[in-house]
């Protein structure tokens, strides 16, 4: 079975290639335009959504909800097509981002022949050369804006593509033949892991689609993920009254082993090469998540050239996780593969076991494996804007302690510079979360200093006010001014830290 996704801003070029390819593979051809039509018929105002994205004229919350509905519909529709047909060729603007983490999907980027496209535009729209160029430029800008909004990535980014074909240098027929040959490679064969990843993606998408269609849950802001047939839905505390409807709506969801609903304000992203549910890090992360009312999303970061190939056990969020996760369950040899269910727990760095524990705590927000470094992490984070904190745990485990420390620090710094979210090392998190003797001492010290300062000021209140308020020489006024603007922040800092620690102690954050 082959799933080929062709991406290009030029619809005519990708359509021509996809149809040719589908004919060669003996499969079905589907397009973005068809799915848009189906989505519109299903009640999703895609046209209005496009206009709103381009003009930014609709409240962001509503746009985000429409985006979520649209993406889940498209993913779900693709899953249906993939399950009905042996071979599927889909073409769209950035279709490579639609089925992240499924290794038997071939993602093709098509670069159209500019000259040819200009000629076609001039002929189709009866435009002169300059106007045709302007039309194409604006079209590309609109597509770039749409892709940025939908997937949080740039349309020109080549991350996640398996092949880039330039039609200026080859014919359409040759391009189709090249992809056909590529589809036969063992690298793109189905594996138990890739089938499971696709199944989870589809399940989550169908769940989100069902929730979006139902009027009881259609307006809720939900995070939906699936792992091994278990669907986790996170919702905001303000929506607690409507939350029981989630289970009722998902009662008709086929293929789900169970549905877990978790209340969460936000997601904490835990980035690590290995996880352990009985580790101190796990305790710290879950403690913080419980305080913040957050769900924990696991992202296992493995080197691009790791010997143990990354395994996508679950999608973080079927709607937005569009990072270049490239799962491979087994080293493809080209020979006959054993039809045996793999054991992901042996090679997944504790991802599955940790996810299991988080689910039981009602704190699971998704889990995935990502191959690469800082660039890939940033792309993945930008595609899922629900995070409020990124925690960098144990990464670069194959390196020595010194190198590991330096690389971890570099990774955190790289990510910090590129995203507008707090990024913490596990040491920072421990310092923030744990309220031990050190924190208690700090609280006591700050409080004592505050008490002393207040006693002094109120014991000598009139001399102080006389100094600050009486007209005097210019020099005295300057000294009084400097005293006020230096002293006040100090009081705010000391008392602010004192109360902050007190509320942390009371677990009231």
């Amino acid at each position, binding site marked *: 079975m082959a799933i080929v996704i062709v991406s290009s801003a030029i619809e005519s070029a990708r359509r021509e290639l996809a149809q040719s390819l589908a004919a060669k593979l003996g499969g079905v051809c589907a397009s973005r335009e068809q799915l848009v039509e189906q989505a519109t018929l299903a009640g999703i105002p895609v046209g209005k959504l496009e206009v709103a994205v381009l003009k*930014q*004229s*609709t*409240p*962001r*919350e*509503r746009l985000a*909800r429409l985006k979520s509905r649209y993406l889940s519909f498209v993913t779900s529709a693709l899953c249906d097509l993939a*399950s009905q047909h042996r071979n599927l060729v889909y073409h769209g603007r950035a279709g490579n981002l639609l089925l992240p983490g499924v290794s038997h999907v071939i993602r093709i980027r098509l670069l159209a022949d500019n000259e040819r496209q200009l000629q076609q535009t001039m002929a189709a729209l009866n435009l002169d050369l300059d106007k045709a160029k302007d039309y194409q430029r604006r079209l590309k800008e609109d597509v770039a804006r749409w892709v940025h909004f939908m997937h949080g990535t740039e349309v020109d980014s080549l991350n996640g593509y398996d092949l880039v074909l330039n039609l200026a240098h080859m014919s359409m027929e040759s391009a189709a033949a090249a992809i056909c040959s590529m589809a036969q490679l063992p690298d793109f064969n189905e594996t138990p892991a890739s089938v499971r990843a696709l199944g989870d993606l589809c399940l989550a998408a169908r769940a989100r689609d069902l929730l979006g269609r139902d009027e009881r849950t259609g*307006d809720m802001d939900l995070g939906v993920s699936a792992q091994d*047939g278990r669907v986790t839905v996170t919702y905001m*505390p*303000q929506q607690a009254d409507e939350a029981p409807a989630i*289970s009722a709506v998902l*009662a008709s969801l*086929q*293929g789900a082993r*169970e*549905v*877990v609903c*978790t*209340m*969460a*304000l936000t997601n904490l992203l835990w980035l690590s090469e290995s996880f352990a549910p009985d580790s101190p890090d796990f305790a710290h992360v879950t403690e913080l998540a*419980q305080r913040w*009312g957050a769900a924990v999303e696991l992202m296992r970061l493995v080197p691009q050239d790791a010997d143990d190939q990354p395994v996508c056990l679950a999608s973080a969020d079927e709607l937005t996780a569009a990072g270049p996760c490239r799962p491979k369950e087994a080293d493809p040899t080209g020979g006959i593969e054993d039809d045996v269910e793999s054991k992901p727990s042996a090679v997944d760095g504790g991802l599955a076991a940790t996810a299991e524990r988080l689910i039981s*705590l*009602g*704190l699971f927000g998704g889990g995935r494996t990502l191959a690469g470094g800082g660039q890939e992490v940033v792309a993945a984070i930008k595609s899922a804007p629900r995070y*409020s904190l990124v925690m960098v745990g144990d990464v670069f485990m194959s390196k020595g302690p010194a190198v590991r420390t330096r690389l971890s620090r570099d990774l955190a710094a790289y990510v910090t510079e590129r*995203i*507008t979210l*707090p990024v913490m090392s596990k040491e920072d998190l421990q310092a923030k979360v744990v309220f031990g003797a050190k924190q208690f001492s700090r609280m006591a010290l700050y409080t004592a200093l505050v008490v002393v*300062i*207040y006693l002094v*000021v109120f014991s000598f*209140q*009139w001399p*102080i*006010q006389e100094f*600050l*308020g*009486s007209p005097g020489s210019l020099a005295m*006024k300057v000294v*009084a*001014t400097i005293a*006020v*603007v230096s*002293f*006040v*922040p100090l*009081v*705010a*800092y000391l*008392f*602010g830290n004192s*109360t*902050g620690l007190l509320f942390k102690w009371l677990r*009231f*954050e």
Partner: protein
Amino acid sequence: MQGPITDLFINIDLYSALQVVVLGFIGGVLSGFIGSGGAFFMTPGMMNLGVEGVIAVASNITHKFGKAMVGSHKHGEMGNVDKKLAMYLLLTAAAGIRLAVWISSFLFESGDTHGADKGAGANLYISLVFVSILTAVALSMLKDVLGKKNDGGAGPSRKMVETLARLNLKPLIYFKVADVSVSLWVLLLVGLATGYLAGTIGVGGFIGVPAMIYIFGIPTAVAAGTELYLAMFMGAFGALNYAFAGYVDLRLTMLLYLGSLVGVHLGVYGVKVVNEKVIRLVTGVIILLCVFSRAVAIPVYLRQMEMLNIAASWDGWLNGASKALLFASGLAGTGIIMVNVIKAYRQRLRLKRTIAYSSQPAEQH
């Protein structure tokens, strides 16, 4: 103690100190909840305790400076601060504050009597600006909330953003963190208004935050974080000016901290657990009640300036009514917030986050 200092600064006993702490607490809860300074409550509250308007504003803006310095650092860690936007706004906000301080000081100094009547002109001016600006803010906020369908996620109106986008007033400046492009002229105008109001009534955030949301079109969290960052500089500038003029009552500033730095934690927690529409509704009503409270005190200043012929004995009643209204609004708003905070906190402890769970038999596809 007798002398000019006692004319300028009130005597603070335990009872009045506790009242200032309560003002700070309510202001802190409201500021944590609403995202604006909370000065709309604290400034008139202190004036009702007999503090001169200019002293109340000076002490509050100094309090705000220190608080904003700590708060903006935390917001910065969360990625909610667009420093570039704040710097642009600051350019004209500084001029706005200088203008405000000059007007307030001029009116206070030009009072030709002593004691309470000396500051009547400045008090009247501050009260009139307070009433007119906050009436407009509260009514537009309520109109925006009540005019929307109950979809639970109604975002702020973008009409002004779209209108300005159509006008295309160049040069446009792009702000990366907020992810918006704004005309330089609009930026400067909003900065001037924010600075003027911060310097006059200590509530620049009531113009700055709505302007950033409704005029610039930036996300609410970034608006609040950027405003706090801006408030740090404006507060510093205001504090410098007022401290140089000798109007800062350090005792009031410190007492405000005792309440506000506790209250702000609870207010922020309240935002997480209360529906956004309810947040804006509660905010609008609280501001409107504060406006009534200040409006009731205006006849007192008019009488002190001999512009209104009423008996001096009315001063006590009118000040009392103003004080009662202010405290009623603050206490009611804080009460609503605190009820929700405590409810959510208890629920969180009891249910440990997971409140719904269902399981169903698998039907494999």
